[in-house]
């Protein structure tokens, strides 16, 4: 029997500066592990975000959820906090968390999960570059 769940996707993007650094390590160890990503003066990326929501289409609307509402949610919860920001310096979420793509995806998941109906499944895919991207939950 066919599962009548449908996945809907929304793509957004944000441009941000960051650096990878563990404050508990020495300068040498940070450089050894993180390489160029440890630059003291930060570097940056155009992050591409794919938000996947899975659910059963509502019989009245035909929607899993209103994509305009999802777009606005992403804007308020994610883009307004991260776009054109320095993730290490300008965000509470990464004040003590290393802003690797993995951790950014986990944070984004948490921020959106809190606002979505529990009947919906959520997955985040985050592209740090065209070649490097992460998915959470795995």
């Amino acid at each position: 029997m066919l599962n009548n769940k449908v996945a809907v996707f929304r793509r957004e993007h944000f441009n941000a500066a960051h650096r990878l650094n563990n404050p508990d390590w020495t300068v040498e160890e940070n450089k050894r592990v993180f390489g160029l990503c440890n630059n003291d003066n930060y570097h940056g990326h155009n992050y591409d975000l794919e938000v996947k929501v899975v659910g059963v289409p509502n019989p009245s609307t035909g929607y899993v959820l209103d994509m305009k509402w999802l777009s606005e949610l992403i804007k308020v919860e994610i883009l307004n906090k991260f776009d054109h920001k320095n993730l290490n310096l300008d965000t509470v979420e990464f004040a003590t968390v290393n802003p690797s793509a993995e951790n950014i995806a986990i944070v984004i998941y948490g921020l959106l999960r809190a606002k979505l109906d529990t009947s919906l499944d959520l997955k985040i895919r985050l592209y740090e570059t065209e070649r490097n991207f992460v998915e959470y939950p795995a």
Partner: protein
Amino acid sequence: MVYLTRLEHFNAAHKLFNPDWSKEQNEEVFGVCANENWHGHNFDLYVTVKGIPDLGTGFVYDVKKLSTLVKLHVIDKLDHKNLNLDVDFMQNKMCSTENLAIAIWEQIVPHLPENVTLHCIKLCETARIYVEYYG
């Protein structure tokens, strides 16, 4: 005439901020791009040279040599850097994509052989925003 293009990438932080203006004026003109703690981009750089293909090789220019030249004189200086703070050829310049394209042109031109002409630097700041500089 044949045009040969090599695509390279670099990931960098920058901000648009005129030190002669107040913070308010910078924010009014540059908006979010004036964030004092910088933001960042994955830049795509298209370097186009032009010439007549060599009879012996069929090349306008050996694209491996072009890639090495661009990496040495441009990418290594920009990738994973802060364009406002870390780049010697961007000091005392506004760090716009326009100015960066001009500066990249100036970094490359002196190192090309005589029979190869730099035609265009195309610099993509995002998928929607890019500049072209023809010298």
